[in-house]
Each structure stands twice: as C-alpha cells, then as structure tokens.
C-alpha cells in the first residue's frame, strides 16, 4: 500500500493546521490559571466554532478559486435576522431557524447568480453585495437588541456542555461536518467544485456541471455563514449590525482558510482544514490573555504571529520546482 503517501500529501495542509492548533491550544491551556477544565474549553470552543463556521463558508468559495468578501456581512445579517425570528414557541423557533438559514442561502445564491450569469469577478461582486447585506442588517437592527421571548433555552443548550464535559458547540460543528461537508465532498457537485478550482476549462471539457458546482459553492457559503450568525445570536442573545465585526469576520475567515491549508488559487484543501485553521487562529488570539501582556501590544503581537503563520503557509517560494512556475 503506497496510498498513505498520497493521502498524506493531499491532507498535508489539514494536518499542519491540526498540529498548529494543538500546539497553540496546549500552550493556552497549560498557562491558563484555571487549567484544562470543561468551562475553559467550552468558552474557547464557543468562540472558535463561530469563526470555524464562517471559515467553512469562505472555504467553499475559495475551493472554486474565487473569494467571498461578503461572508462577514451575511453572518451579521443572519445575526440581526435571528435576533428577531428565533423566538416564541417551539414551532416558531424552528421556523425562525429555517428562515435564517434560507436567508443566508439566498444571499449566497444572489452572489452566485451575479458571478455566473453576470460574469463579474467574485471579489468585486461580493464587495458590492456585502454592502447590500450590511444595509439590510442595519435596517433590521439600527440599535443592538433582541426580542423579549428570545429562545434562550435553546441558546444555552447549544452553547453549554453535554454531560457537563463536552462543549455542545463542538458536537454541533462535528454534526455540520458529517451532514454537510462529507456528503458534499463525495458528491458529483463536490468533485466539480474541486475541478473548477483546479481548471475551469478542463472541468467544462470533462462534462462536469460547472455552473451548478459554482452556484452550489456560493449557496453553501451563504448557508454556513448564516449558521455562524445563528451561533453568534445564541452566544450574545442579541443582534447587532456592526460593520467592524462583519469586516473582521471576513478577514479572519480568509486568514483561517489559509492557515488551514486551503489554496487561494483553488482546488486544494478541505473544510476540515479550514475549521482547524479557524480554531488555531482563535487560540493564537487567546494566547495573549493567558500571558497577561499589556493589552496595547495585543494587536501588534496578533498581527505578527498571524503574518508569520500565514506567510509560511502560503509562500509559494518554498513549493515550486521550477523557477518559471513562480511567475504563472
């Protein structure tokens, strides 16, 4: 069996992200005053899972060799919408959840339609649609707030601990991988997305459903971003149309995807890698708190660590075999 070498090479990015996450998280936990307790892990997991969902959303589009600069805004829109409609009786809450997810998917579908049939570049399209999504979010929630009968029980259940040990959010994330990512990866559409990312023309010539694949990637991206927004609503109990938050999540999702070994040139990497990239990114941010650094130096430290990690992960200088490859 020589397959393991191939599998290792294919999963190298994901494994590196996992290693980075384990390293960072070990340093974090061993230096944390409270140590490795369920509470510490749950708090870290809740923050990590939000970013992980948004990073997964980014990953789908990046796999097609595009980029989605509106994920953060879909995320904020879902948060604001969720703070209204995830409330009331059990049936209303269920309908509310479905409504938020549908809205997220619709945002992704709009991006996809403009990119595919409008033939615009994803980067400019999503900058513009991001402004639209943020405008709607601001219309819904000019001031932060939530409904009085907000589904707090559900929120507590999903952000709490199962059997007092395992963070429920991590179980939820694992569920998303099983229900969304694995079927996607094994389906024709999933293979099409990878093929489109590697070479659009070759995918078309092979008879793959290129447009459907690209469209699905955008729809799934919007859907996952809305899941992230729902989780933010569950943690904060409220909706807030914060421009800074939206921009930050967009940028962090790109950084997480790169840390997770997903190639920005498309066709390489996996959502699992993106998730570990997001968790590692969060762990880096949290390191500062346990080392008790002057808060003023935090942004600089975070910037430098992020810069180094991402630089080493993405530099093609160390990957090319032929000098001319550098230029194409």
């Amino acid at each position: 069996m020589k397959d393991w070498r191939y599998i290792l090479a294919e999963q190298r990015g994901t494994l590196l992200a996992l290693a980075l996450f384990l390293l960072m998280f070990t340093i974090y936990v061993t230096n944390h005053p409270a140590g490795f307790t369920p509470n510490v892990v749950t708090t870290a997991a809740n923050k990590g899972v939000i970013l992980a969902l948004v990073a997964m959303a980014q990953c789908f589009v990046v796999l097609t060799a595009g980029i989605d600069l509106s994920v953060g805004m879909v995320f904020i829109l879902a948060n604001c919408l969720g703070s209204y409609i995830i409330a009331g009786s059990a049936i209303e809450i269920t309908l509310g959840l479905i409504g938020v997810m549908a809205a997220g998917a619709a945002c992704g579908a709009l991006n996809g339609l403009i990119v595919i049939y409008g033939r615009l570049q994803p980067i400019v399209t999503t900058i513009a649609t991001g402004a639209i999504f943020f405008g709607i979010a601001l219309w819904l929630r000019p001031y932060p707030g939530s409904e009085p009968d907000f589904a707090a029980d559900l929120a507590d259940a999903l952000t709490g601990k199962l059997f007092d040990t395992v963070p429920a959010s991590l179980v939820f994330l694992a569920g998303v991988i099983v229900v969304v990512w694995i079927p996607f990866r094994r389906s024709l559409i999933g293979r099409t997305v990878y093929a489109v990312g590697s070479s659009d023309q070759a995918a078309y010539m092979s008879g793959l459903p290129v447009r459907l694949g690209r469209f699905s990637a955008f729809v799934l991206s919007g859907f996952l971003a809305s899941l992230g927004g729902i989780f933010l609503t569950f943690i904060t109990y409220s909706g807030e149309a914060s421009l800074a938050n939206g921009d930050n999540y967009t940028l962090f999702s790109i950084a997480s995807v790169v840390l997770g070994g997903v190639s920005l040139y498309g066709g390489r990497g996996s959502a699992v890698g993106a998730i570990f990239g997001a968790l590692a990114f969060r762990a880096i941010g949290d390191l500062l708190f346990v080392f008790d650094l002057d808060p003023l130096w935090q942004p600089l430290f975070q910037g430098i660590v992020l810069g180094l990690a991402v630089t080493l992960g993405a530099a093609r200088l160390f990957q090319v075999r032929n000098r001319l490859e550098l230029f194409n």
Partner: protein
Amino acid sequence: MTIQSSRERHSFWHAIAARIDLPIVTAFACIIVLLLVGSLYSENFLSPEYLLQQLKVASFLGVIATGMMLIILLGHIDLSVPWLLTTGAMMASAATAYGTAGAILAIPFGVACGFVMGLISGIGVAYLRIPAMIVTLAMNAIAQGLMVAFTGGASPADSASPAMRYLATGELIFGIPNAVLVWAVVGGVAVFVLSRTGFGRSVYAIGNREGAAYLSGVPTQRILMFAFAISGALAALGGVLLAGYAGKAAQSMGDVYLLPAIASVVLGGTSILGGRGNYLGTVAGVILITLLQSILSVMQIAEFGRQIIYGVVIVAMLLLYGREKFTR
C-alpha cells in the same frame, strides 16, 4: 475597389471604437446623470462652489485610488490601505511635535513610513510569492498593531503641521483647492509613468501574463515590489492630506477608504484580473463614487439605505460594462 474602400471604412470605425472606451464613456455619462438627479434636489448642486468642494473631497480618494489602480493593473490587490493611510497620517502628525525640523519633515516622513511598509508587502508578494491578499492583510494588521501601541489606543494628541493643513485646505491658485492640485500632480505622473515609461509598460505586461513578461526580460519581481511600495506611499499621502483636512489623525480613519478605492478603480474599467485599464477611467470612477456618496447624504437617506443603494449601483454599473468575455 469597393472591397478596398469598405475595408477602409471598417478600419476607420474600428479606430474610433478603439479610441472610445465604453467603461469610461459610461462612467462619465453616469456622472452627468448623477449631477442632474442631484440638481433636482438642490439648486446648489450645479454651482461651481459645490462642484469644487466635491472635487476637493474626491482628491483624497483619487490619490489613494491611484496606488490601488497600479496594484490592480498588476493583477493583485492591496488590502493594507486602511492602516497604511492611518500610519501616514499619525506618523506625519507625530513628527510635527518635534520642533521646526519635525514640522518640515512631517510630510516626507509620513509618506516614507507608508513606502517602507508597502515595500515589505512587496517583498512578500514578489519574492516569497505569497498571494497579495494575504500579505497586505497581514501588513494591515501589523500596521494597526504598531499604531495602537504607539498611540496607546486613544486618539493621538498631535495635530497636523501647518504644511499639511495648507496642502489639504489652502488655495495656491485662485479658487482651486490645493488638494485638487496634489491629485492633479499625482495623476499626471501616473499617466506619464503608465503610458510613456518602461516601468508602466512592464506593469501592463505583468498584469497580462507575468511568465511571459519574465521571459521577455522584464525584471518582474523588482517592479512588483516597487509597485506595492508606491501604493503604500500613496495611501500614506492620502492619510497625510486627510489629517491636514481634519486637523489631526484618528483611529480607524482609513477604514472607509478601502472599498471606495477598489470600487472606483473597477468602475473606471480597470480589469480586476490586471493588464487592462486607463487612468482616465479611475478619475471617472473616483468622481462617480464621491458624487454618489454626496448625493445620498444630500437626499438624507438613512445609513442602511445608503449602503444598499451603494451596493446596487456598483453591481448594476458593472453588469452594464464590466462583464468578462464569454470564453470556453
């Protein structure tokens, strides 16, 4: 004989069509439409004072967009504009506090800071071959970290030097604001460099296909590196002007300039993939964006409505003329 003349007529129309650039014509037509729409709301809209005021506001964006255009022509993107702009503003203001020599050197010092940071991004892109989106994102985070650590997170106490104020608000020639003159100089140099020098030709060549440019003997890496340095310097110059206009620098003063800069370059017909674009288009894009923002605020539309209209207008205009050719 008839064939000959019809061919001549044919090439004549081609020559006309080649001269008239559809995006630029459309952009200027939209500017006129915007002015007419605005004049319906207010008599003052077509007055010379108002138009000069708009041109002055546009010139800050114009200087920044010039650097962005250079990078987009190369087929890359510069996301470090917000904090390089702030760095330029803060460093120039800080230098002012060091006596007469500081006040004299304030502007060059601020611009030099932007140049050096841009140069570092350029090394990352050109020599380490990291995607520009990642490098500039990291550089943005590092610049933010440096500035937060430097100012202590509060609004900096230093104010702009007299020279900076004069450059941003004064009038050298009767009636024409100095900021507009600065943009005219920057733009004039940009037009000359892009169309008449080897550097400019190389920029277009690299944007079209870097591998081919490299094989043709263009020092692509050096040009890439310096292009990012120039973009950084121009962002910092924009920051210096803004600080002079407002009297002092402020945290996150640059956040609102990233998307307008990209949008105005792209609306001006420069291909986001690089290699195609005209500076006149960028001028049109800058004026268009500034007028749009101004009209939306004159019409007293709430912030959410402005965001939505802003996004819709950009998508609509790009759908009009920014579409990729259908190739397969």
